[in-house]
Structure formats: structure tokens, C-alpha cells
């Protein structure tokens, strides 16, 4: 199937700003699904609220656009009640880790098979540029006019510590890598987290004088490096990209199947 066949084309052009990285995530995600050869009916896309979360409206899958921060909780209900469905959960950084932080760590802890794609633009895009838990120390935002004093989470570290069994990071510049990682993540039988650094030129870019969308992507190119690269050893400020965790651990729904087995045995 062509990429565009996975789109709900009647809603295009989409609502995102010119140059918004969220569109590149959509682009890569559809390529991943297409390359995996999934049928549209096998996929449920569950999202929260935010610019990023609008992605679910644009794809011709089963789509569930929920409440700010709560996508993973809804998704847990979808997945657990119908484990054969593939559940993809695109999330904003605020959505995933501000209001939604608890559901994030708990989904990771349970190791329930779904793919959380954290579209990290380091800002609340939808509400107009307030700082997020990913903005980072020193950033400017509409609610941090004197620069931000909040430290940011390391999404990879947090996901690992919480128990995610697949954890990766990539950027919108590295669209090809993104597709590859998303494919792996979707196939992974457990909770997978893919952090995508993505540009919000309208708010994060403008407030922090980072130039155009393309400039912001150049930044991703220059300031990231594959995990364990020589470059990283030389320049520890570089941010690593790639797959940080990939491990096999019993998945939650299959574990519950065993509970059912035990319970039914006890009965008969």
C-alpha cells in the first residue's frame, strides 16, 4: 500500500505549522507500518491531547483521541482487552511526562506490549509555548520568561528505570533511522518507548532563537551521535541516538493469560 493510503486525506493539509516536526514523525510512522505490512484494521492508535496527539486523527487506523496525559491508560484497556491488536501511542513530551508521567512509568513497569512514541519538542505546543518537563534548564518559554530553572527528564533513563524493555531515541533529521526503530518497537513484545526529538519552530524555536525548522534539524544532526560512538567519547555533550534497551521479558497480557489458566483450573 502507498503511504498515503494510510492517511485520512480529507483532513489534509494538516493543522500543524509549517516545518513542524510532528509531520515528519507521522511520515516515518506510516513508512514503518507500511514496511511491516500491517493491515489498517490491526492497528489502534491512541493519543492524548496536544499538537502531537492530533496525529491519530490523520491515520486511517482505529483511532482513539483521548485526554491530556491519559493515552497510555486508555491504551492499556484497549490492549489488555484485545491483545492481538497493535497499539501505537504517539505522545507529546508534556502529555507523556508532565501530566501523564505516572501512566508512563506504570505502563513501562507492567511491560504491556505497546509502543509509546514520545514526540519531544521540549515545549507545550498546543497551548502556545509553556515550558515542559523536557524544556531543560535555561530554556525560554511563555511561563519561563526569565529562563527555565526546571531540570529535564532523561526519557531514556526514566523509561529504563521504570521497566521498559525496548527504549530508543532518534530525531526528525534521522527519519530513516526513525522508521527502522519504529518498526522494531512495534514488533517488540513488551512496552517500547521511542523518543523522537522533533522541532516546534513556532514556539520552542522562536522563543529560543533557534532559526528555521531546517536549522533545528541541522542541530539534531550536529548534536547527536550513535550510541557508543567515538564522537561521544570525544564530546560527552553529544546526545546519543539508537536503541538503548532491547530485552525479552514476559509481556503483561501473556502473563495474564497464565492467571486465567490457573483460575480456570482451580474451577474445573
Amino acid at each position, binding site marked *: 500500500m*502507498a*503511504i*498515503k493510503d494510510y*492517511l485520512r486525506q480529507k483532513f*489534509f*493539509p*494538516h493543522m*500543524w*505549522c*509549517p*516545518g*513542524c*516536526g*510532528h*509531520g*515528519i514523525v*507521522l*511520515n*516515518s510512522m506510516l*513508512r514503518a507500518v507500511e*514496511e511491516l505490512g500491517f493491515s489498517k484494521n490491526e492497528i489502534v492508535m491512541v493519543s492524548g491531547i496536544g499538537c502531537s496527539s492530533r496525529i491519530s486523527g490523520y491515520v486511517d487506523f482505529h483511532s482513539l483521541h483521548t485526554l491530556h496525559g491519559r493515552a497510555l491508560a486508555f491504551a492499556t484497556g484497549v490492549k489488555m482487552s484485545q491483545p492481538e491488536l497493535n497499539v501505537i501511542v504517539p505522545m507529546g513530551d508534556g502529555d507523556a511526562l508532565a501530566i501523564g508521567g505516572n501512566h508512563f512509568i506504570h505502563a513501562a513497569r507492567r511491560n504491556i506490549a505497546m509502543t509509546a512514541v514520545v514526540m519531544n519538542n521540549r515545549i507545550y505546543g498546543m497551548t502556545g509555548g509553556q515550558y515542559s518537563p523536557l524544556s531543560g534548564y535555561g530554556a525560554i518559554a511563555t511561563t519561563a520568561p526569565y529562563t527555565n530553572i526546571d531540570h529535564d527528564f532523561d526519557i531514556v533513563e526514566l523509561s529504563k528505570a521504570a521497566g521498559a524493555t525496548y527504549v530508543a531515541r532518534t530525531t*526528525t*533529521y534521522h*527519519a*530513516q533511522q526513525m*522508521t527502522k526503530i519504529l518498526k522494531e518497537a512495534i514488533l517488540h513484545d513488551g512496552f517500547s518507548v521511542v523518543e523522537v526529538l522533533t522541532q516546534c*519552530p513556532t514556539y520552542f524555536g522562536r522563543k529560543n532563537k533557534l532559526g*528555521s*525548522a*531546517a536549522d533545528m*534539524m*541541522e542541530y539534531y544532526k550536529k548534536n547527536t551521535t550513535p550510541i557508543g560512538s567515538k564522537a561521544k567519547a570525544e564530546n560527552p555533550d553529544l546526545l546519543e541516538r539508537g536503541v538503548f534497551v532491547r530485552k525479552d521479558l514476559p509481556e503483561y497480557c501473556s502473563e495474564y493469560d497464565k492467571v486465567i489458566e490457573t483460575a480456570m483450573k482451580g474451577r474445573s
Partner: protein
Amino acid sequence: MAKKKHQLKEHRIERTWCKGCGICVHFCPTKALELDEEEKVYAARPQDCICCRQCEIRCPDLAVEVLTEEGDSE
């Protein structure tokens, strides 16, 4: 997706979708693309295109598709 180089057939551009962000223009390795005065992209130098599809995969508006002779973009 195209692994080896293909022969360009056409840049299929969805003008109404293109928002003129310039990402494709910026990252095209051969500078084959440009924005017109309405800030929509067009293939200014199609002959330079090496069909690497960087424009296609990075377009946030899914507005550009690189059609090659093999027609393998579908």
C-alpha cells in the same frame, strides 16, 4: 524503499499540502528543489535529483513524493 539509485520520473508535489517550510529544499543533497513565490516547493533542477528521497521522507506535510522509473515508491 529505494535502496539503489533509480531514474527519476517525477516529483509528485501536492501543492495544497506543501506549507513551504523549506526542509526539503534545505536538505536536498543536490539542491534540486526550490520554493516558488507562493512558497510552494517545485523541482527547480530535476536533472540534478539523485532520487535519494530525503525530501520525501522528511517532508512534514507528506507533500512530496519522488516517482522513479521503477515506480517503486508505491
